[in-house]
């Protein structure tokens, strides 16, 4: 080559790409790769990354920048792990919310994974709220923030579930929707109980307990703004003005209601799809039976630990699920596969709700003494979730008053001795509960504080809290 060409060539290579830029672009490309996963793993068989020269200098070419950042990541690993348990107001909480959780989010690619993750995060926010409230550390601001986050996550779940449904993956959509709904429902009950407990301990003090008040009455304009458009459509007088303020509890209820509606739609769709599908009904039956069996084991352990009174509601729910299951089996044998399918789905959901109830009991058992002395009213409210008919009529229990009077789930004709025994036990429990409730009402009317081992001269609840953080929402099915 002529000399000047050599120089020319040499000079050109003096133009370097800055290592920082190189790394930045590398990260961007990695992100793009993550967002757009390879369809076919085989494709790279044919692609040959031609080695112009053996890449001995790859290591040297990688700038120390990358090594350092890797070191920081490794060192920081301990921090992000410790942040998992952090509560709002805690030192590590910002890391949890701004680093750890978003990091997990970037690793989720499919709509299904995203929905599952969002549901877990929603559950987390609720548990944080409950922990704080039980500690007496819940402020209005925090409550508002948590409600915001909850809405965001719940909305994300529902959006992704809708996306799954649109994409045709109705099964997964239904499953995730079920789990979220069951979870929200359980949380709502827990919070109601916490609120009631607060009122009880407060007795007739004129001094409102700030912390509990905030749990019940935190105002979050942002939350209300993200409440469903459907709700706004119904309330036509909301144009222009700032939307109506909503509490954390109402948010949960709203979301739970929405989740339930979405759930019912999905179940109907799934049922339609599997109209004549015997196989689908069979699969669903297997799933329901598994769920019931698992929950039964769980329930047995919990009953042994906390007493049957505490887990009574879950027992009732689980029994109801079993009843529905046997109804489904009847339909199945009569070749009514679509009906059977719906029943199996309901039974499955019932088992999940029972499970959630048990989890809730575990959470609060240690600090709410009423659980050991008798069944508090919230468990009563949870105990009667009527069976949904295919026609779609859902007699929801809106009022606690109806709880004890709600019709018992229909029983099958073939009653084994065990079932009969359970029925009798159930009736006895209900009678007992009715009596206790009447007592409680009488007591609260008289203004006397409900006897608890924890006297509270101050409005703060002084019981110790340790929410079991390991019992996370289990969405693996």
């Amino acid at each position, binding site marked *: 080559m002529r000399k000047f060409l050599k120089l020319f060539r040499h000079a050109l290579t003096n*133009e370097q*790409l800055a290592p920082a830029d190189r790394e930045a672009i590398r990260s961007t490309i990695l992100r793009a790769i993550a967002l757009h996963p390879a369809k076919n793993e085989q494709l790279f068989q044919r692609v040959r990354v031609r080695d112009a020269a053996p890449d001995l200098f790859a290591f040297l070419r990688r700038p120390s920048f990358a090594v350092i950042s890797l070191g920081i990541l490794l060192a920081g690993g301990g921090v992000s792990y410790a942040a998992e348990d952090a509560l709002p107001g805690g030192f590590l909480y910002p890391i949890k919310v701004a680093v750890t959780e978003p990091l997990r989010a970037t690793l989720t690619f499919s709509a299904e994974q995203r929905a599952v993750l969002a549901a877990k995060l929603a559950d987390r926010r609720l548990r944080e709220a409950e922990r704080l409230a039980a500690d007496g550390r819940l402020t209005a601001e925090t409550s508002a923030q948590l409600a915001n986050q909850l809405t965001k996550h719940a909305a994300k779940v529902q959006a992704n579930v809708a996306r799954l449904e649109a994409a045709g993956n109705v099964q997964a959509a239904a499953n995730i929707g079920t789990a979220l709904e069951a979870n929200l429902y359980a949380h709502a009950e827990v919070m109601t109980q916490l609120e009631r407990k607060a009122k009880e301990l407060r007795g007739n003090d004129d001094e409102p307990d700030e912390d509990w008040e905030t749990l019940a009455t935190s105002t979050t304009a942002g939350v209300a703004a993200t409440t469903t458009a459907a709700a706004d459509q119904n309330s036509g007088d909301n144009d222009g003005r700032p939307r109506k303020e909503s509490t954390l509890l109402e948010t949960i209820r709203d979301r739970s209601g929405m989740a339930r509606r979405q759930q019912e739609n999905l179940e109907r769709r799934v049922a339609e799809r599997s109209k004549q599908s015997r196989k689908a009904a069979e699969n669903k039956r297997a799933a329901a039976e598994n769920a019931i069996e698992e929950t039964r084991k769980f329930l047995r352990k919990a009953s042994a630990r906390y007493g049957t009174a505490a887990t009574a509601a879950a027992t009732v729910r689980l029994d109801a699920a079993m009843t529905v299951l046997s109804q489904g089996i009847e339909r199945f044998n009569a070749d009514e596969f679509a009906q059977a399918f719906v029943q199996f789905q309901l039974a499955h959901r019932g088992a999940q709700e029972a499970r959630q109830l048990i989890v809730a009991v575990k959470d609060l058992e240690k600090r709410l003494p009423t659980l050991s002395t008798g069944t508090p009213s919230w468990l009563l409210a949870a105990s009667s979730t009527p069976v949904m008919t295919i026609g779609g009529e859902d007699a929801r229990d809106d009022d606690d008053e109806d709880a004890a009077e709600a019709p018992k789930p229909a029983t099958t004709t073939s009653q084994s001795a065990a079932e009969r025994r359970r029925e009798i036990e159930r009736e006895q429990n209900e009678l007992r509960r009715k009596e206790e409730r009447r007592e409680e009402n009488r007591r609260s009317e008289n203004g006397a504080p409900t006897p608890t081992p924890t006297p509270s001269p101050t409005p703060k609840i002084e019981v110790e809290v340790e929410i079991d953080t390991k019992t996370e929402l289990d969405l693996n099915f």
Partner: protein
Amino acid sequence: MGPEQAFIQAYDQYADAIYRHCYFRVLDREKARDLMQEAFTRTWSYLADGNEVDNLRAFLYRVANNLIIDQSRKRPTVSLDEIRERGVELGKTSPEDIGKRLDLQVVAKALQQIDPPCRDLLILRYLDGMPPRDIAKTCHLPISRVYVQLHRGRQQLRILLSTTYHA
């Protein structure tokens, strides 16, 4: 090794070269970076969608080349005089050696003054080391044209650089 790892290896291997190519074509460092990034991401999309590529390196160049052409079509190309006045900016990683830096400037300036078609070919040939046959394939030109233009480019280069290098 999965496709992702293979691809990111390709990045590690070819990023510099692709960037340099883009730079000498557009003479704007920021644009060059963007173009390089875009070339890689688009290549990945193509691969992830299930297409096969025989020669990844050539493919990357082709994508980059197309991007550059699109760019120059969208924006009115800067006039030669403007470039002459603007001069070639020093990047953050300009080589320390003053000699090298000057070389770079001289060469870059010289390149600017060469007509785009010839310039491109020169870059492809001497910077990227692409044999004329590949150039012909990449730029969709008959080989004869490639040879001719390379020759012309070399002539111009020699004249422009003769003062500096006494070639």
